[in-house]
């Protein structure tokens, strides 16, 4: 246990030490669960039967009985040799596994009688007495249990006895003090009881107590942990029939409120006292028996004066109610704590104590007045409008948020007037034509606005304006657009919105009601209002087509974007990460509004410009589906072009010029495709072409010079290639051109 030689190391070692590991011994891995096998005592593989270990495994490898199997016992009985009546027990049919811990008849280690307690001890009795108070039969001190309990003491008690313990003593080291009086005598207990095992100060000092004698400690009464199972009040117990009937002389009245421990001790006292109580039923009510000494007061009548009329006893006259505390403090009758009053919070003036649900009425179905009212109310409620992106707010919303004062109406009107005055007539006329078209499309009786697509659903105010506009269109109002726009917005915003509304009205014009009824609007379509698109969009393809046609590769056909390779890819290529800090991979993406009409408008613009710029004919097949592609509209340039503005840089000016020429040339070549080709004099055309060729040559020269600065080495090759291929290009390129425009056509049709 302790180290022999080293006194410093007084470690305590438990268990058997593990064998020291050999150096070259392979470390044994623990056997995994699926490879572990179960074997019985003889090392055979054990087979499991039933769910766990249940079931009988019979004989060798689940044969029965013996190697031969179960031999049936043949019944033999004669007059001389009677058949033995076999005294069989269930254990005879069991295997040894069944007697094990988990078997069906486990054999536990049980205390045999030899080790059981020989005598009943007082301690146990006391505990029983305590528990008996809560027993069903009050006063039953476990008589029944005593009858059943084994007469022997347990091994623990026997061991204690062997160690010198005696019944009635406490357990523990002997004490060097006076032997207390074992409370054989009844301890008088009054109303307020001491704790039962507490200090026994009430011992007499007069007893003889020699110095060199030690005493055993006092026995303790185990604390009663009887759980409270009834629904009475704490400490309540019913009338004790023993006292109610028997001990009438001792107690004036039954004290209901004494503690239980108090009762216990008094009970013990009763019991241990020499005064023997009569058992059985006794009392005056049953008359005087032969053994009774008293025969007086036979007809005693229990009067009601024995009982309390008042709960809690009579009031003592001093008004102290048993208090012994010093009496300086007198309680004031009418002293009241100053209540601090917390007033309810001040409500804002326009507070309504009802939650206001935003009406889900489709504002296009109700009259415009209602819609306006609705819009106004929404304006009030703009605080609880869903949080929108910074860019999706309009100026009035931003103005509200920032707390600025809105622009004065007079100024705005002036601005509007001046802007209108400055507007040039072609734009106006073309816009008005679109407006008229929208009016025509919507004023039909079949138009069912409630089922139409809501292009501005993300911006409720804008949608409301749009609905208003649509409503006015349906009513055939001529100036529907102007009147439905918000007059508090800037002219630029209004112009933009005007354009958007007209486009949207044309795009989402009411389809046939039978067709539209087949589609239902999805519930969750608005969950994602934006789509991810690459930040850098490719430039106009037509410019490049033109450049390729002129073999002006280089700046015009080359575009460079930011691109983020994956970190791992850089690692594998042995290349430092070009953007060490960034986490994006691929092209940088930005979020765009899904339902923004501008996503479509940019495409239509380009296609329009490319296709319709030289007063091109309208393809008859698409005329029904593309109502706004009328010749008036075709004059339109890009919608962002403001007339009289931006002097184009020479390169792009040149490009657009050449492009229009190319297109003119194309119109000649693909005359079989287009039906209504404009009549162009042939002479003119040829002149143009000549002119074009000259121009090309010039431009090429310039380009070449430029190039040669960079690439002196390849100068010769380029010149050669250019000169050699100049002749062949025009035909193939024209074909190419046709293909791409038809592609564009298809695309634009798809969009609409």
């Amino acid at each position, binding site marked *: 246990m302790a180290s022999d030689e080293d006194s410093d190391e007084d470690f305590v070692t438990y268990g058997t030490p593990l064998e020291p590991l050999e150096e070259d011994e392979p470390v044994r891995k623990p056997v995994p669960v699926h490879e572990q096998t179960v074997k019985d005592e003889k090392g055979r593989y054990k087979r499991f039967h039933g769910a766990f270990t249940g079931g009988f495994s019979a004989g060798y490898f689940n044969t029965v009985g013996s190697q031969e199997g179960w031999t049936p016992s043949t019944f033999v009985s004669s007059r001389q040799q009677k058949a033995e009546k076999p005294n069989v027990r269930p254990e005879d049919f069991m295997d040894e596994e069944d007697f094990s811990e988990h078997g069906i008849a486990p054999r536990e280690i049980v205390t045999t009688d030899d080790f059981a307690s020989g005598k009943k001890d007082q301690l146990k009795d006391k505990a029983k007495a305590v528990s008996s108070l809560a027993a069903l039969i009050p006063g039953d001190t476990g008589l029944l249990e005593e009858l059943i309990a084994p007469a022997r003491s347990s091994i623990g008690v026997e061991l204690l006895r062997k160690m010198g313990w005696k019944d009635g003593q406490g357990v523990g080291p002997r004490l060097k003090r006076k032997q207390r009086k074992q409370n054989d005598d009844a301890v008088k207990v009054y109303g307020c009881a001491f704790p039962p095992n507490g200090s026994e100060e009430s011992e007499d000092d007069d007893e003889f107590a020699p110095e060199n004698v030690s005493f055993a400690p006092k026995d303790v009464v185990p604390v009663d942990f009887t759980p409270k199972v009834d629904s009475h009040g704490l400490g309540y117990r019913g009338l004790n029939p023993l006292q109610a009937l028997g001990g009438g002389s001792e107690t004036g009245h039954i004290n209901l409120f004494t503690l239980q421990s108090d009762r216990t001790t008094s009970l013990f006292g009763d019991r241990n006292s020499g005064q023997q109580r009569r058992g059985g039923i006794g009392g005056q009510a049953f008359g005087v028996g032969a053994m009774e000494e008293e025969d007086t007061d036979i007809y005693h009548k229990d009067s009601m004066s024995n009982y309390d009329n008042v709960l809690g006893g009579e009031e003592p006259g001093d008004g102290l109610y048993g208090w012994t505390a010093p009496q300086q403090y007198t309680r004031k009758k009418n002293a009241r704590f100053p209540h601090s009053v917390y007033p309810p919070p001040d409500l804002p003036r326009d507070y309504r104590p009802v939650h206001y649900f935003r009406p889900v009425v489709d504002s296009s179905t109700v009259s415009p007045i209602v819609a306006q009212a609705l819009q106004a109310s929404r304006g009030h409620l703009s605080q609880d409008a869903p949080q929108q992106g910074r860019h999706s707010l309009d100026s009035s919303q931003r103005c509200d948020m920032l707390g600025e004062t809105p622009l004065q109406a007079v100024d705005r009107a002036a601005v509007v007037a001046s802007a209108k005055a400055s507007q040039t007539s072609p734009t106006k006329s073309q816009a008005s034509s679109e407006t008229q078209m929208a009016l025509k499309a919507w004023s039909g009786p079949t138009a069912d606005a409630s089922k139409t697509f809501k292009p501005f659903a993300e911006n409720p105010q804008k949608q409301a304006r749009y609905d208003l506009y649509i409503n006015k269109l349906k009513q055939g109002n001529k100036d529907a657009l102007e009147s439905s726009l918000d007059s508090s917005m800037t002219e630029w915003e209004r112009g933009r919105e005007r354009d958007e509304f007209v486009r949207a009205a044309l795009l989402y014009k009411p389809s046939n009601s039978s067709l539209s009824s087949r589609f239902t609007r999805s519930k969750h379509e608005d969950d994602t209002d934006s789509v991810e698109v690459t930040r850098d969009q490719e430039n106009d393809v037509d410019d490049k087509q033109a450049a*390729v046609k002129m073999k002006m*590769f280089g700046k015009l*056909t080359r*575009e460079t974007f*930011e691109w983020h390779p994956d970190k*791992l890819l850089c690692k594998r290529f042995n290349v430092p990460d070009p953007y060490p800090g960034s986490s994006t991979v691929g092209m940088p993406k930005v979020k765009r509004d899904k339902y923004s009409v501008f996503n479509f408008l940019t495409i239509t613009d380009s296609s329009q410009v490319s296709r319709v710029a030289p007063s091109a004919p309208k393809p008859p097949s698409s005329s029904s589906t593309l109502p706004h592609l009328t010749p008036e509209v075709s004059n339109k340039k890009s919608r962002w072009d403001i007339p009289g503005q931006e002097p184009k840089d020479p390169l792009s000016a040149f490009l657009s010029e050449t492009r229009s020429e190319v297109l003119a040339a194309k119109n000649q070549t693909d005359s079989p495709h287009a039906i209504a080709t404009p009549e162009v004099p042939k002479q003119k055309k040829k002149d143009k072409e000549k002119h074009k060729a000259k121009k090309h040559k010039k431009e090429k020269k310039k380009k070449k010079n430029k190039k040669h600065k960079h690439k002196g080495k*390849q100068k010769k*090759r380029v010149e050669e*290639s250019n000169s*050699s291929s100049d002749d062949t290009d025009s035909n193939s390129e024209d074909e190419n051109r046709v293909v791409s425009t038809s592609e564009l056509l298809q695309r634009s049709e798809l969009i609409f």
Partner: protein
Amino acid sequence: MAFPQPRPQAPQLPQHLLRTIECQQGAVRAVRFNADGNYVLTCGSDKSLKLWSASRGTLLKTYTGHGYEVLDVDSSYDNSQLCTCSSDKTVILWDVASGQVTRKLRGHAGKVNCVQFNEEATVMLSGSIDGTVRCWDTRSRRYEPIQILDEAQDGISSLKVSEHELLIGSVDGRVRRYDLRMGQLHVDFIGSPITCVCFSRDSQCTLSSSLDSTVRLLDKSSGEMLGEYSGHVNKGYKLDCCLSDKDTHVLSCSEDGHVYFWDLVEGSLTLKLPVGKAVVQSLSFHPTEPRLLTAMEGHVQVWGAEPEDAAVEDS
């Protein structure tokens, strides 16, 4: 002691047929030299890949494992691994010696047109008809690509990898060059669907052939056109083009059964090599010597500069 420099000889063109290999694997979709030019790899339409000796023309090994016709193959720099792509939308990494499939990578949504190792064979790049290029890691056991390049708006027809650049030709008529070192994507607009792209050996120029029957040599850094080569027929098939071993000539397959040789500088047609009657589907130029592989229908032809050498080898 300094030897005088040998006089620069006129570049020799591989115009003599050395041998014809009957591959017996259906149509040969692609033929490639391995990294050092000693072996030939042919992709067959019968789902098999075959490895041949370039000098003898004997079959060395057949690799089977694809579910549909094999479309392209590339070998690693150390000849220990091969990668192939197929119409069954998979990319397979092979162990050359054992012929076992090391990794089979799924992820493309359509047939995979082209595949290429990077310089150290740590990444495989595959371009598919679904418009994406996927970068597969050969070092890890991940079955997901490292990165997907989905900038192309149409199918990928051809891709090449240099030290730190990916050159990708797409049917949308654009040649995209991803510069990993700079973190930039350069898009060159060609207009017509691209069938094949190549780097020049000095990696200063890019060569791209397109369906308008034109091969264009573009300056890599600026995108300017340095040369334009035409005369051949390429209108419907995905035909290969390449540069000769010393960058002196531009080669292209043609649908009229010839291989066209143009002088790179002058742009003039130097040689029109008659291969057969059908379409020359694929070609591959030896990395160091004037030797050419052409694939037509079910056979591969090996072309060399000197016929007498071939005679010696044959005998």
